[in-house]
């Protein structure tokens, strides 16, 4: 019954999904579809492509559902990792290059999500916390990390764009992540980053 499965933790829902249960999969989408779409939108900068990527990612999740391994991380991290890979593919296929520069320059459309549930409110709180952690980084570290993760650029492309040696780019990535890791304590929702 709907009321029963809604009380299950992600990992338990995922077990039902792995058994081929469409209702459990729908619940998985309801829990993570918004974060997935938001990530895709952040990377490609337009809604239509972000919808395509989210759809592609969730169908791939459904079809490869037996490959989820709890030991290797939370369901949310797994889902977002798949969305990230799909978005990178789209960026590298050049589907969205017209919009990506705009996004990377910080010109972003804002769509305030409706606050519907406590979970959504907590997610938004978490997003603010992670953004705050990113904002504590020196500008050049934050930019290097964002170009790589959200822009899909390789270290050598970034080195060329920012006119600095590859070693410096790699160093900034490592130092930036290290600093972020320290800032993140207590920010991320419990149990969600394995």
């Amino acid at each position, binding site marked *: 019954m709907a009321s029963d499965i809604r009380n299950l933790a992600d990992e338990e829902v995922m077990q039902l999904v792995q058994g081929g249960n469409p209702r459990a999969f729908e619940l998985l989408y309801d829990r993570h579809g918004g*974060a997935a779409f938001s990530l895709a939108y952040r990377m490609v900068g337009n809604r239509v492509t972000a919808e395509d990527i989210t759809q*592609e990612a969730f169908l791939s999740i459904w079809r490869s559902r037996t490959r989820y391994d709890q030991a290797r991380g939370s369901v949310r991290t797994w889902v977002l990792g798949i969305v990230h890979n799909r978005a990178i593919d789209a960026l590298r296929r050049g589907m969205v290059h017209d919009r990506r520069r705009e996004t990377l320059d910080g010109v972003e459309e804002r769509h305030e999500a409706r606050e519907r549930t406590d979970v959504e409110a907590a997610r938004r709180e978490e997003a603010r916390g992670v953004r705050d952690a990113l904002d504590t980084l020196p500008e050049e570290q934050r930019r290097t990390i964002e170009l790589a993760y959200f822009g899909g650029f390789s270290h050598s492309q970034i080195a060329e764009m920012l006119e600095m040696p590859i070693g410096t780019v790699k160093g900034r990535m490592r130092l930036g992540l290290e600093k972020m890791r320290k800032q993140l304590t207590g920010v991320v929702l419990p149990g969600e980053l394995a």
Partner: protein
Amino acid sequence: MTGPDHARFADDAGAYLLGALADDERAAFELHMESCPDCRNQVEQLRPAADALPRSVEQMNPPDRLRASIMDVVRAEGDAAPRPRRERPRLRFSLRPALAGAMLVLGLLVGFGVAQLTGGEDERTITAKVDDARLPTASAELRVEGDGDDGAALTAEGLPDPGPGRVYQAWIARGDKISPAPTFVADRDGSGSVALPEDLSGADAVLVTRERRGGARVPGEMPVMRVDL
């Protein structure tokens, strides 16, 4: 404790986690990590920061039609073994070819080169049709012994890097049933090969897609190559 040649990789952990290493560099770093506890620890230390990045973005609500569109496909597939479908009513996004991939409408592949058949009676060499749009530099051929009941070997050249964490995977098509075959990677020069030990008699085609490392049970995209048997 560090592994051999550690200095060469000392700053790679961040770039690795962000997906910013080139394919060959990533492979080299992964190999190095096997013998370098220092680098392994560093990656595990930094991973939570990289995993948090997707959570930093402004949260938006996807349109309701997206949920409906995804669930239409999922319900249609049910919990039966996923199998290719001939049509999908609600698909109207611009990624249509990629999305239709899992449905694998055989014969709908466009923009492919011409297939040809060469070789003697005991061994056939069949040239693969390659999707020029996605693999502009690739070519491949399948060598089949006799009727194919001893399997075949696919060799390809000019293969681009399939992307971080991704590999090529072969598939065997029989009617509208697609079964998974081994995955393979391209080396530095873009050549790759895969042995298909399965009995190919009665098979219609060998297909290739790009999947996540480890391979998939059902194709995640429209084939990038196709060899008609």
